[in-house]
């Protein structure tokens, strides 16, 4: 164990040889691509924190729920996983809207603890319902040949599926950011985020806005679910781990800062892969370690937060 460990550390620290430089860049790119997916996991959490001041503990379970719903769509129709988004996203929007109207609006804005407890319970309910409905078996979304393709890039080979995932992630971040900063709905959202009471005084119906917002959040979750399910097999119990990655991306980037969340996700992804080069068994550990160090150095997150 000790000898291969020393060897990999030396390999990592001596990027002088041309090939090692390539390995370094390849690890970096793969880390960024993985991180873009983590960032997309974090987006919904970032939105609910930024706008509703609500931490959704069931966020990871919604990602897994979306992946299962997509697999049901794929199996019962001729659609592939990406095409299943056509049916999945409207469905996720409705689920989000209903959740907010029926459940979350009862607790949001009261105190920080109630939504936390409510979504904690919801997380357990979703996991058990999934286990009841789909058994504890792992599933994956069939990505077909797409999952095997790579593109040559100056001596390196980069996977096509991770590239597509990252491109979709960037597009979603760009679109949501634009929606919030450049549209009338976005203005209302930002107003509520800044000062709920005053926004109400000028005629913003915050409860209805929240319902649409949670619908939108679950749409971003739906996109993340499909990309996740195509990359990694999932089971009803995989939710909490997704929540941790999402949470780290959000907190690292600064609470409620959308592009901060994106950068936060990238940092987690890159640290995991470089960590795995030091010891292959400890990749996720190094992701958590970097998060912890960053949090000690800058408890408020790397970027200015607050207004999403």
């Amino acid at each position, binding site marked *: 164990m000790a000898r291969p460990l020393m060897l990999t550390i030396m390999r990592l620290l001596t990027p002088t040889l041309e090939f090692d430089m390539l390995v370094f860049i390849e690890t970096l790119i793969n880390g960024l691509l993985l991180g873009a997916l983590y960032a997309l996991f974090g987006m919904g959490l970032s939105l609910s924190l930024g706008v509703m001041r609500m931490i959704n503990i069931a966020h990871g379970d919604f990602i897994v729920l979306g992946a299962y719903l997509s697999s049901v769509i794929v199996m019962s129709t001729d659609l592939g996983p990406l095409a299943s988004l056509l049916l999945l996203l409207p469905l996720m929007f409705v689920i989000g809207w209903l959740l907010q109207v029926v459940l979350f609006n009862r607790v949001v804005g009261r105190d920080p603890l109630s939504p936390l407890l409510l979504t904690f319970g919801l997380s357990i309910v979703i996991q058990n319902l999934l286990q009841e409905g789909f058994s*504890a078996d792992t599933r994956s979304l069939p990505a077909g040949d797409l999952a095997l393709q790579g593109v040559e890039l100056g001596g390196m080979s980069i996977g096509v599926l991770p590239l597509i995932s990252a491109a979709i992630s960037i597009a979603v971040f760009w679109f949501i950011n634009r929606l919030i900063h450049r549209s009338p709905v976005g203005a209302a959202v930002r107003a509520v985020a800044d000062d709920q009471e005053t926004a109400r005084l000028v005629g913003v119906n915050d409860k209805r806005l929240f319902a649409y917002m949670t619908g939108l959040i679950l749409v971003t979750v739906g996109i993340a679910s499909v990309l996740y399910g195509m990359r990694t097999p999932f089971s009803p119990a995989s939710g909490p781990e997704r929540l941790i990655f999402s949470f780290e991306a959000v907190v690292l980037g600064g609470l409620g800062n959308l592009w901060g969340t994106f950068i936060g996700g990238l940092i987690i992804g890159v640290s995991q892969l470089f960590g795995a080069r030091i010891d292959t068994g400890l990749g996720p550990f190094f992701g958590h370690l970097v998060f912890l160090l960053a949090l000690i150095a800058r408890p408020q997150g790397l970027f200015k937060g607050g207004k999403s």
Partner: protein
Amino acid sequence: MKHHNKEKLQNLPKVGRRYFLKSAAALAVAASMLSSLEAMASSDVIKIGYVSPQSGPFSPFAEADDYIIDQVRGLLADGLTISGKHYDVEILVRDDQSSPDRASNQAADLINGEEVDLMLSQVAIGPNVPQQCELNGVPSISTMGPWEAWMFPMGGKPDVGFQSAFHFFWGVADIAEVYTGLWNAIPTNKKVGMVWSNDVPGMALGNAEHGMPPVFKAAGFELHEVGNFPVGADDFTAHIQAFKEDGVEVVTGLFNPPEWATFVAQSAQMGFKPKVMTPAKALLFPSGVAALGQSADRMSTEIWWSPAYPFNSSLTGQSAAELVADYQAKTGRTWTQPIGVVHALFEAGVQALKLSGNPKDPEAVANAIRNMQLDTVIGKLDFGHGPAKNVSSMRVVGGQWRIEDGKPEIFITDNKTAPEIAIERPFEAL
């Protein structure tokens, strides 16, 4: 109630004498049946506990369980007569959900709550069930994991063995020999990249002293290793980079099907094209192979059992091919290797009860297994002359998956470890 009866009695004359006599006769028959049922309940019942991962990531190992348990229950419907005494046999099936903790709990429940006389179990996730049995003195036979991954985690020594726990499966050295046999069939640069999972079976197979690596080294292969991966890993960049750098042509290790799918996809994405891929466990099941699509063509693995095995069941007399044909006809699913092994587990269990003379005596049953020899559908089991005490080895050969018309099929390509099993096809590079 009483009032009701009176009413009925008053109505009787209308019904007539014959009807009354008939009903009275029926009542008498029913009563006698009831009493005989009571008598049956008071006679001895042998309880067999069976724990396996029927759900969760290890569920493919238990895919054939329902079929085999139905089959065995059917065979034992009339019970067993042992030393002139008749026993009814009850099989209690538990799902450990692929969780070692749950396996322990289920075993404890079967031992203390149901007081089973014999425990049968699958130990692919770890030897938790046999451990409970050994602690409580309940005779146990297990399978579905290399015997080293059963004996050493339980703190056993090969020359000492255990009081109540017995196991049959191949050992690490057997499968390592199968792998080198496969690899020697074609010319390679003999550079082997190894990737082991960071769990009990992975540590056992990948152990540098007692695992597969020393056998590979002795056979002249050059070993390359970066480190273990955590179960459920979704990235293998570090491994693949190192293998590309070192010019590895043969990849082996221990993977679960999801991780193997990730490894294969990422290897293809990163342009890593080895000549031979021989993962343990990941390619056992047609479902896992089908998920890989055409890329699984010519991947190789160990075979524990196939319809081509020339052996017959001691319970049903069926040949391996007949058992497979019956399974496919009844379930509509493709055959998997655990069918033969789980069937043999019940063959061994029933034989142990018969040999014991007194199936209700745990010590008698354990002693019966200690030197038991039995010809099963997977070949001869011999607990008296195994590679370690309390262990019977079983046959394992090498094979290669071929995907023809999108349908995966496995063929035996190497039989050096068990020459009585015929080769079906020559080995080919990826």
